[in-house]
């Protein structure tokens, strides 16, 4: 157990910091500290350009193997990159789903043809991806997917029909991956397939969901015989659940450290506000700010533990199981703290009709954190069942 980085790693840190210093300028200056949760709808065009800039520097897919266009970085280097990226205030990544989810999934489960066809577009920063998992009837019970995939012998294509919901960035994306039922009449996690679809086609319609923030990062995506090429199913028909779950495993990667830097920026803003309005002398506020700081520090230590753990047998370690519940709850508390620090000023928006300040957007948006990606209640079930071996929830027989 050792916390310091090697000389080579520190050199790498310098390289990353220098590159960001030299490139996060000019037209990209205004993107600093933007595009995070609650702010994801801002500057989409400029942030797409930023993706290309990152690609030119070779900073997309740094964790991927070199043969797929990645950099083959060690865990330490990935940690460093994410830390420096956030320290520089570089913007929320519009390409994170492709880089963090589609890419690793295709590298693990995809055919050679799929890798060849899709990975270069992700590494170059050209192709943006979104995720078609949740449905109106499949939220916490994700396996209750109703969207259908039917193979059409005549056209040689899969035809997808149904509805996905809570799809982030669907309106900006070029591709979507979708889990859909290939086996009519099947139930639960059996009989599903994992499909890769082009967004721009007659069979797909995207509608923004107006959220309680008044903005629309999330969307509904409607499929009406949307087409998917025969070679664009990942794994075999009926094996989609295994692929989908494998993908969720990639969500707990190094990117959590970048997310924490984003949190740090938010907390810094709360601290500045408290110093400005004198609430930094209020004993209760002092306790809560310190508690937030402590929670964020430990979140980082927990991530370092998660990343260093060997987990050879592929099973999730305990510190990984608790991670989502911990950060989501922490973030929700931070939003409440921000409002309490601001006092009556918390109510005043930036501009009519409903342009929120960053802290207001934070406060409202964090209510989604404890819901998406497995609600706090589902997380507790998972922890109790997988982490503690307690009995599984009773399910009515299907």
């Amino acid at each position, binding site marked *: 157990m050792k*916390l*310091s980085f090697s000389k080579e790693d520190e050199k790498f840190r310098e390289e990353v910091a220098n590159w960001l210093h030299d490139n996060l300028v000019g037209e990209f200056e205004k993107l600093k500290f933007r595009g995070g949760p609650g702010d994801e709808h801002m500057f989409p065009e400029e942030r797409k350009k930023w993706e290309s800039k990152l690609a030119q520097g070779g900073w997309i897919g740094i964790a991927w193997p070199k043969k797929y266009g990645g950099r083959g970085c060690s865990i330490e280097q990935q940690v460093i990159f994410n830390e420096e990226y956030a320290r520089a205030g570089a913007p929320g990544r519009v390409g994170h789903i492709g880089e963090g989810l589609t890419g690793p999934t295709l590298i693990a489960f995809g055919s050679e043809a799929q890798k060849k066809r899709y990975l270069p577009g992700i590494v170059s920063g050209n192709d943006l991806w979104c995720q078609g998992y949740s449905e109106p009837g499949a939220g916490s019970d994700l396996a209750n997917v109703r969207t259908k995939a039917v193979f059409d012998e005549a056209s040689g294509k899969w035809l997808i029909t149904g509805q996905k919901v809570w799809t982030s960035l669907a309106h900006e994306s070029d591709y979507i991956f979708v889990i859909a039922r290939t086996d009519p009449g099947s139930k639960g996690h059996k009989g599903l397939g994992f499909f890769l679809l082009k967004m721009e086609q007659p069979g797909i319609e995207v509608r923004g969901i107006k959220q309680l923030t008044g903005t629309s990062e999330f969307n509904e995506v409607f499929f009406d015989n949307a087409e998917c090429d025969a070679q664009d199913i990942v794994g075999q028909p009926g094996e989609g659940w295994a692929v989908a779950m494998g993908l969720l495993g990639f969500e707990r990667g190094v990117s959590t450290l970048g997310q924490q830097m984003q949190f740090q920026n938010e907390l810094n803003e709360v601290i500045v506000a408290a110093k400005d309005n004198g609430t930094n002398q209020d004993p209760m506020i002092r306790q809560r700010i310190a508690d937030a700081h402590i929670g964020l520090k430990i979140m980082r230590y927990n991530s370092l533990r998660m990343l260093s753990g060997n987990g050879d047998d592929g099973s999730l370690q*305990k510190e990984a199981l608790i991670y989502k519940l911990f950060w989501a709850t922490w973030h929700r508390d931070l939003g409440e703290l921000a409002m309490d620090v601001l006092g009556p000023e918390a109510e005043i928006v930036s501009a009519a009709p409903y342009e929120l300040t960053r802290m207001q957007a934070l406060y409202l948006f964090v209510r989604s954190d404890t819901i998406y990606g497995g609600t706090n209640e589902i997380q507790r079930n998972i*922890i109790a069942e997988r982490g503690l071996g307690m009995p599984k929830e009773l399910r009515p027989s299907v």
Partner: protein
Amino acid sequence: MEFSFTEEQLMIRDTAQSFLSEVSTSSAIRNAMESEWGFDINLWQRLCTQMGWQATHIPEEYGGFGLGYVELVIMLEQMGQYLFCSPFFSTVCLGANALLVAGSEAQKHNYLPQICDGSLTATLAYTGRLGSWDANAVDAIVSAKDNEYVLNGAYRYVPDGHTADVLIVAARNADTSGKSGISLFVIDAKAKGVTREYLPTMDQTKKQAHIVLDNVVVNEQALMGEYANAWPLLDKIINLATIATAAEQVGGSQQVLDMSVAYTKERVQFGRSIAGFQAVKHQAADMMLRTEVARSAVYYAACVAQEVFDSGLLAGELEEAASVAKSYCSDGYFKNAGDAIQLHGGVGFTWEYDVHLYFKRAKSSQVFLGNGAYHRECVAKILLD
């Protein structure tokens, strides 16, 4: 960067676990806690001479094993888990740490080999009647005349103060306050003018004493560090001990979780194991979260503590790392222990079941060296003032 245990560290953990599960049984704990002495002296000797745990992080030149603070923390976590009753914490985490941080070469060569061979126990006394844990806690008075120092004052809450062979005491010059004017001395517990009185406690597994110094006269050889300027050293010693306490708390948090899960799986009501009820599962899940998060905080703090001994880059983080760990571990352990009583239902309220021992330890360790609110305020000072 490698934030996981090495093979050797895992072996140390497993050895500690198997030894403690054998010797620190419920009946052994109860025998120890019912005595004023507070531990089984034969067992302590066995630990010192056969296992040598007390010599873990003491450098080889003083007769120790020269391992690190991480190894020490691994053992403390197990001791907290098994509620091991011994003068380990006072001797190693207070006494040996104080000698390592503030002792002269002569003092280290004199005392540390005796700690390593098991012939000497030690403790630290600095908190006076005020009962706080910062520099203001020191209210014993030292006056220097010729080549001698005269100590007067009283200390409360001194861990194993009534049984330790050697006392490391803090005292300040008259008319000083806060961080200024503080000195450290190492004195024989049986020196003339030292009175020690056992303080019965609610948590009977950790013993405390009240110590009075009445015109205790010592010479230069007893002085640790610079006269009237020892606060930075004492501060470091306190932070190292704080991390050690947090490590014990993690072990306790784990134990009450394990006990609760085992009990709720066994306990049948309404025709099913109560562990299957979501209200029970979610409470247990929160307990696991608190335990794992606490563990991450302690392991990080242990690495920082090691950097203090190695003069590493992160040594400057000691105070913050200690407060982060102690605030989270204190409140987490207390919450877990309370939940454990709840999950055990009626039997959790009995003297017979061990849950209450942990509930009491959770409280005694929470209020020792500063509770959660105290350490959050320490962090707030760094952030907000």
